[in-house]
């Protein structure tokens, strides 16, 4: 199956990916991002979401974990705040209950 890729983000960051060939959906706040995600979840299989929007939507994004598609993944916007690592950490804690990778805290 051939799927489509999109990026949801706010303003500047997504423009560079537009030039790289992704479909872009601007969203300035989490509310808009949530709406957009709902709308495009059926149509696009791989969706990148900037970190500042993904963070407040953590709960909402959990619903995508049930099915293989769509794949929603956060990317850092500007400077990374470590949300991506945070997601991995949460998954690890859920599954193993112990910290095997991130010994820094």
């Amino acid at each position: 199956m051939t799927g489509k890729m999109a990026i949801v983000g706010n303003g500047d960051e997504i423009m560079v990916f537009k030039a790289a060939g992704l479909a872009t959906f601007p969203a300035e706040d989490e509310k808009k991002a949530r709406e957009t995600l709902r709308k495009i979840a059926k149509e696009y299989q791989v969706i990148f979401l900037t970190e500042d929007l993904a963070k407040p939507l953590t709960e909402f994004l959990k619903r995508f974990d049930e099915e293989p598609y769509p794949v929603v993944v956060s990317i850092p916007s500007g400077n990374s705040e470590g949300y991506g690592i945070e997601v991995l950490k949460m998954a690890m804690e859920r599954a193993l209950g112990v910290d095997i990778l991130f010994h820094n805290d």
Partner: protein
Amino acid sequence: MARLNVNPTRMELKKLKARLSTAVRGHKLLKDKSDEMIRRFTVILRETKVLREEVESELSDVLKQFSIARSITPSFEAETAFSMPSVAVQAECETESVMGVDVPKVELVRTKRAEGLPYAYSEITSEADYSVQKASELLPKMVALAQSEKTVRMLAEEIERNKRRVNALEYVMIPQLEETIKYIKDKLDENERAAVVRLMKVKSKA
């Protein structure tokens, strides 16, 4: 542990024993499944972490370059330059089974519309060229990251679910069955002893 509410008969005993053996076998299988899933999970988790770090550092580099480019180009011009991409990307989406969990397997497919960058060199600064090119190069890695992060999340969910099943069997189902079986056995033995004693009494009177 509460025992099940059943009649203490030989029939029930037989049924319960069959259920117990099934439960024990199921528990063992699920436990093995859980072990293997955790092993795979840790492998994928490590890969994902490395990938995540790579993507984050490279991407922030791209974005930095891009914001420089944006700041020296008028926004209107930048918009027109970037809104006609010379490549189209698509994702080849399959699913793969990791320990019975359907996880996504995505591959990037690039279809070129035109050679080179999507704008004339005179329009935009070189930082933009660099960042667009770098972003294109980064895409396969980002797709790989998307795939493995999703796998991690799905596996984590499945492991949690499986753990709950194992625990339910180990700490609820199996003890319950064992206790009920013991109860029925005791009851049947008691009946038997009662019958023997009764017979002895009858005999001694005669």
